[in-house]
């Protein structure tokens, strides 16, 4: 199978994720969309690695996974504590930082 098809798939997944971030308000869903984007880029990286015949892309994918894991830990903690205080998981309700 032509490896370029994986790239189309990665782009599709990324677009779905991005659209999700832009239109959804639920923090958990938002979070999942972010993860989707990250994984889409992972897929692209691995595909490039295969296309170019070196391991750089795969190594970068590992980095991404580590960062994504760390992000999930911190992000979920924040979302949970916000939900506890405000009884809502909508990101639009947390707009106190604006001027």
């Amino acid at each position, binding site marked *: 199978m032509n490896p370029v098809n994986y790239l189309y798939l990665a782009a599709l997944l990324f677009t779905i994720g991005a659209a999700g*971030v832009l239109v959804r308000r639920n923090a958990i869903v938002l979070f999942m969309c972010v993860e989707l984007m990250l994984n889409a880029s992972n897929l692209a990286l691995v595909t490039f690695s295969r296309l170019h015949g070196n391991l750089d892309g795969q190594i970068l994918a590992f980095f991404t996974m580590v960062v994504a894991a760390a992000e999930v830990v911190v992000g979920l903690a924040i979302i949970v504590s916000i939900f506890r205080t405000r009884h809502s998981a909508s990101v639009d309700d947390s707009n106190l930082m604006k001027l």
Partner: protein
Amino acid sequence: MNSLIPLLVAAPLAGAALLLLGGRVLDRFGHWLGTLAAALSFAFGLVLFFDMLGRPADDRAVHVKLFSWIPVAGFRADAAFQLDQLSITFVLLITGVGTLIHLYSVGYMAHDERRRRFFGYLNLFLAAMLILVLADNYLLLYVGWEGVGLASYLLIGFWQHKPSAATAAKKAFLVNRVGDVGLSIAIMLMFTQFGDFSFAGVFENAPQASQGKLTAIGLMLLLAACGKSAQVPLQSWLGDAMEGPTPVSALIHAATMVTAGVYLITRSHAVFDLAPDAQTAVVCVGAVTLIFGAVVGCAKDDIKKALAGSTMSQIGYMVLAAGLGPIGYVFAIMHLVTHGFFKAGLFLGAGSVMHGMDDEVNMRHYGGLRKYMPITFVTFALGYLAIIGFPFLSGYFSKDKIIEAAFAKGGTEGWILGLVTLVGAAVTAFYMTRVMLLTFFGQKRWRPTADTSGSAAGEERMPHPHESPASMTVPMILLAFGSVFAGGLFTLNSSFLRWLEPVTGHSEGHSPLPSGVVTGLTIACMLAGVGVSYLMYGRGEVPVVPPIGSPLTRAARRDLLQDDFNHAVLVRPGSALAAALVYFDIKGLDGFVNGLAATIGGVSSRLRRVQNGYVRSYALSMFGGTLVLVATTLLMRSA
């Protein structure tokens, strides 16, 4: 002996410092201290004068350097005095008349609670005036020049609680400042031309400079002289200056300070002799002022303002004479000295009359005073005869010489100037006779005045004219002696001419008329003026309320519309400009800056709205940004 020269200045300067800083302790005897300082200076002047007489004519000038004043590279200004025949003449006039007027003021200002300060200012004036005439360079002269301006300002405004006095003082200083600018530009021109502004340096090198530069220097000096000596077009302050106490008018605004312009021109003769155009300007200014002042003097009902007009006119004579060049310098100074005597005497007489008439100045409210104030009457009359040029009194000799010199100028110019001076003599006789008749002759036209003394303040009472105390009459008598004899003394053997000639130079002109004819014409003009005046004011009733009069009379009462002119041409546009600039500064310059700040603030608050706090809009802008970046990168690569 030369060490006495700085003491001439130091005595009144110390007096001024003591009186102005001394405090109330000095209130009781401060006036005598001031008089003593003036007298001391006069004594030093006499000693120096006799010392000078003892030396041959070409060895009379002495020079004392005190210290280096402003040394900056090529700019060397020294505090140095130069005493020659011209300066000692002024020194004696200033300190002599000055001492007499100090004495007079002891009586005149007896009831003023600020008398001590008055004497402090008078001493300050003497010191500044002496610096003016003793300076050996133009910059030090400038110090004296503005110093007398300051003293004049302080003394005109001595009664500061009167707004009119304060305004007059300010006006005098301002008009003088305009003249002073002329002096400072002249000094700057001298410095660029000669690298020096000492009398010796400038006069020695003047022949090397171009005619144009010399004319410029001369015109600037003339501007300075116009300011100080109240010559057209800077004459407007002198009439208002009569707001000051009368001794001040006598000393500063008649006898000494206002003649400083004549001193300046005579002193700078080396420049003027080489700049005929500047000389022509001097003569024109003198001639115009001569008539101008005389016309104003004819119309004024205020005795001091009438005398002020006369002062202007007489100084016009002097300036005219000084503008004639070597044929006139000596006579300008001679008229200056005799004028110092008789005009100071006239002013003191006027002060004495005011003293007796409860400070009334309107001559239409005088009349018949000769019986009540005999000494004042006699001394005033002698001064009167001197000023109109009655034969063999001081004014006769000095004015006659000027008229002769004017004719001797030669050509059409000579005829014009001669006629102007003759007309001036006639008008002088007219207005002085008018003053005389209105004040001392005719019927009593006294009016009650508001009583400011004693318990009945505010109540009106009739004046009780009385003769003034001895401290006032003695100076008047002494000045009357000067008015009578000075001219004769100076003319005898041409003593004054021989005295001043080494400094100013002298040449005889060629008069188209024999000297006797000129003298005859002068006397005829004088008699005509007296006669007309007698016909108008000597017979019959003088109206207490002035008649409306001809347009010329009305204009003359308003100083020939000088103030209206200044107001329309300078004051009003000036204050409009200032107001416009204030507006421009706030709305224009500051408005621009504030507008810039407001614009930045406005843009920022617009931009702030983008920060709406919604995560997704931030994410959108990130996406947008990324897209733009990627698109640009791709486009760049493909291009």
